[in-house]
């Protein structure tokens, strides 16, 4: 290698040794160093200077707190700071017993809630049955037939006591976000909501009793539509059946 070819690399060695050579020039110099013993020797000398610069700054004692902070980061300090869990066999047995009690308790609460729900449903069915019996036994109660495709049943209308009851068979089951809504129809064709209901699961028929605020004598018919859960202000969905009084 001629001196002219060697010089550009040689000139970059001091900057390389001190870590200031630009990235673009590093690869070329490193490739040259692999083949040039003279440059490697020169680099070693400059690296010695570079290493010496590490100690060319005046020593300075850090604060005493730094030593304490460092000490607190060591494993022994971490262990003593950490709460210790050491369980005896007796404590373990008590702990397991408590856990078992907690599980049993939770199971009991869930069972109780399920029983309460069943009890409420039975009570509601009982009240509905009693109301239907009383309506059927009342002399002025009208019985009107319900018939629309597969849906059949009876409408009990007690205008004296302002009660209307539906006993309907084969009402299709609904999606969770839908409900049936009962509408009273006045002579002008306007609809007033008389309640919402869903078919009871496991039963072929559905009963729905309404106690409208308005007098039943003001209405000429009743209808049921499918509406979004919670009901609508006016009918929006498909009509299931309609009965004229």
């Amino acid at each position, binding site marked *: 290698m001629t001196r002219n070819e060697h010089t550009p690399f040689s000139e970059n060695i*001091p*900057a390389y040794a001190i870590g200031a050579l*630009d990235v673009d020039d590093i690869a070329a110099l490193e490739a040259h160093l692999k083949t040039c013993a003279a440059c490697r020797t020169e680099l*070693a000398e400059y690296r*010695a200077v570079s290493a010496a610069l590490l*100690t060319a*700054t005046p*020593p300075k004692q850090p604060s005493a707190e730094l*030593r304490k902070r460092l000490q607190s980061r*060591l494993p022994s300090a971490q262990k003593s700071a950490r709460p210790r869990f050491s369980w005896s066999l007796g404590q373990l047995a008590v702990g397991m017993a408590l856990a078992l009690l907690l599980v049993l308790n939770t199971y009991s609460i869930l069972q109780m809630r399920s029983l309460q729900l069943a009890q409420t449903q039975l009570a509601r069915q009982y009240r509905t049955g009693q109301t239907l019996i009383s309506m059927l036994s009342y002399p002025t109660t009208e019985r009107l037939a319900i018939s629309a495709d597969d849906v059949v049943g009876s409408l009990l209308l007690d205008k004296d006591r302002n009660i209307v009851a539906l006993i309907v068979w084969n009402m299709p089951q609904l999606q969770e976000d839908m409900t049936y809504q009962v509408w009273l129809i006045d002579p002008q064709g306007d609809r007033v909501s008389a309640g919402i209901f869903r078919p009871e699961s496991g039963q072929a028929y559905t009963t729905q009793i309404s106690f409208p605020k308005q007098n039943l004598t003001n209405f000429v018919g009743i209808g049921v539509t499918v509406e979004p859960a919670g009901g609508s202000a006016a009918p929006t969905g498909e009509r299931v059946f309609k009965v004229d009084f």
Partner: protein
Amino acid sequence: MRDQTKLIRYNEPVNDVDESALIARVTQGDERAFLMVYDRYASRVHGLTLHILGDPMLAEEATQDTFLKLWSRARQYLAERGPFLPWLLTIARHVALDRLRLEARRPALSDSNDPEEVWQTLPDLETVAEESRWRSTYFAVQSLQPDLRQVIELAYYQGLSQSEMAEVLGWPLGTVKTRLRAAMEKLRELWNEK
């Protein structure tokens, strides 16, 4: 002269055998040995981090990080490849420069987290001077012309490349290269005179 006395006092030669044994104990998780190493070298590490960062609080954090790295990586120190102190100070320099770059939103050093790179930046064992020779470097740097000392400061203690120095100083790149080369040659001459 008073500064030189102080420097020499802090640079007291370390007994190699004791030091090796101490580091070996640190690698085995001996906390007492670790704190002895801290007591011995904390001022050297902190002097360097403070010089680089210029802020006592940041410098203490960098010093702490350096010793925590020593605690977790002491096993990577190989006595046969060079003395312990420059190895530790090289870690301290990288930690401080990384912090400096973080504060200034500049990219981190590429070799900062690679312990193998630490060895590559150190001189070969044969060329490692004794610590007593290193002490003179401080005075050698101080004896440089201000413009030459400036490029050494920016390159070594601020981690700037030649292009970055040209931008910071507003000098042509060629001037930076010439002055850095002149500064390093001067230091090498002073070094070889010892």
